[in-house]
């Protein structure tokens, strides 16, 4: 199987246990799941169900207590910090609830930041950002700092930043939670279009019904475990 044919994500018996003072919190319990390339998947569940923790484990932001995780065919569970950083740079794009753009950089600079780290040539960076800004309706706002953009606009820049570096998957943690309905719908349109046209793999952690409604696969979680896994056409 070539790397392009490997699943975007595969987890096998993943546990994540936090120690909170004397108490042991089992945030993720024995989760095994495979997400293929090009999926538009939502991990849904109430607060504390373990969806964000699972997203962090998949993205290499935190290590599983037990179990194994593969991202684009690379096993991340035992990776060094350096290798994990490289994996995040090359294979994973993140979209956060609070946008998390770097406030000292313009929209353009934020969007091209991962590509700068990757060493992508300037003309290639400009071409990718130009196309994605046009697709997301952000053309003309390239030189604005995050403080001068609306929440919806900031989140679109975050989407462009996550997608422009051409990762194997984009992990989006409650991307619509801070947005009003119109902005949420518009953002979901953008992400659905990127998924359809460019084949970008999206995995959402969400409890927003709009996101769940758009997802082609819905994985429901509760108490750190997968309760149901439903694929829709």
């Amino acid at each position: 199987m070539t790397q392009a044919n490997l699943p975007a994500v595969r987890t096998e018996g993943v546990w994540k246990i936090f120690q909170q003072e004397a108490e042991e919190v089992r945030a993720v319990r024995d989760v095994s799941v495979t997400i293929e390339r090009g999926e538009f998947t939502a991990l849904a569940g109430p607060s504390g169900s373990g969806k964000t923790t699972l997203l962090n484990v998949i993205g290499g932001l935190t290590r599983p207590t037990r179990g194994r995780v593969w991202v684009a065919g690379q096993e991340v569970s035992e990776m060094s910090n350096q290798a994990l950083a490289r994996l995040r740079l090359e294979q994973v794009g993140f979209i956060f609830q609070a946008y998390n753009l770097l406030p000292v950089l313009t929209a353009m600079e934020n969007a091209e930041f991962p590509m700068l780290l990757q060493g992508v040539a300037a003309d290639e960076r400009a071409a990718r950002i130009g196309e994605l800004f046009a697709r997301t309706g952000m053309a003309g706002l390239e030189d604005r700092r995050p403080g001068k953009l609306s929440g919806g606009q900031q989140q679109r820049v975050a989407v462009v930043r996550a997608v422009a570096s051409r990762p194997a998957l984009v992990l989006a943690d409650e991307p619509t939670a801070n947005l009003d309905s119109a902005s949420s719908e518009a953002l979901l349109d953008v992400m659905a279009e990127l998924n359809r046209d460019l084949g970008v793999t999206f995995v959402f952690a969400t409890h927003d019904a709009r996101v769940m409604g758009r997802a082609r696969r819905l994985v429901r979680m509760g108490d750190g475990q997968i309760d149901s896994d439903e694929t829709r056409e």
Partner: protein
Amino acid sequence: MHVRILLLLAMRNLRRQMRRTLLTSAVMVLGGALLIFSFSLGDGSHENWIDSGIRTSSGHVTVEQPAFRVSSKIEDRLTAALRAQAEQALAMADVANEVVAVSSRLRIGALASSAAGARPAQVFAVDPAAEAEFSTLDDQVVEGRYLEPDDRLAAYIGAGLASSLELRIGSRLVVQAQDTEQEIAAQLLRVVGIFSNGVPEVDQAVVHIPLATAGEWLGSGQDVTNVGVVLSGSHAVGPVVSHLETTLAESVIRGDVRVMDWREANPALAAAIAIDDFGNYLVFGILFLIIAFGIVNTVLMSVLHRHREFGVLQALGLTPGQTGAIVLVEGLTLTAVSGFIGVTLGLVGTWYLLSNGLDMSALVGEEMTFSGVVIDPVIVPLFRVARIVQVVAFILTIGAIASVYPALRAARIDVAEAMKFER
């Protein structure tokens, strides 16, 4: 990581908290300027002390018979042949451009007497022309004149000795000392000039006479007790000492000759300068410790406020080391820019004083002696490239050290925790 990104982030983050950055920067600018200004003045005044001290003693460098420094006896003298060898070595092209004056002298302890009484004296038998270049005593005439090349039985004496022995210009003076045959020999002299140096030990004891007169009086011919050298500055001491030791190597190994720099010959002056330097280093060390805490505060506050941001950077693919590097570059940029401005301001302030110097006479009086040396109350600062490099390196080191802890804090964050962090 791309250096451009590092610098871009550093500069923009420093601008982000402009007031805090400017306050810390202002302290560093002031510290840097003060450091350059004070060290330039200190170096200038030390050079002044050295110049004043060596000209009233045995020079930046002195060539002597090894035992003379302790015994001060005429039998521990340099032969005319060794003296000539040393003078020739100093005329060589390797060092000639650094040599300002060479004076070969015969120094002996003597008893000076007149009709009014007798006093112990230090007799310096000199070549008047060479000594006039070497010493500043010829400029300190209060009555009469300094020795001239044709003088035979002339004496140039300190005002204190003249007063004690009630001598005036034209008065007769007898000096007695042990000659080369270890017999007591006396010499009649006539006072041609009286000087006032400001240092009581010098004014009450020093007598200059022609070297030729001493040669006949003591039977020492052209022999001397030291060949003293004044150089263009104390920076030239090391190379000239090495050159003399190499050129006179045979005599040095045999123990006939010893080459000493002014520190060995004037340990009290060297100690005074070392103590003064230590005091300066101590004060500036404390000052920069305070500044370092300012930098730590500025950079650490910035790190704590940007906890989530560092989490984002690592989520985007920065390694912990690269995250720390961003903070380190911020601290170093702040330090380097502030240090550069401070050093420039310090140099401008110092340059302003270069022509006229800083007149301290209102504080210390017109004449001050320190460690047996007359100090000029007008301090002319001294620029030294090595000192500027030292100050810049010191400022950057302080900046780097002060930024290490905040950088480690940024590098060691838990990314997942940082993303939860709420501002």
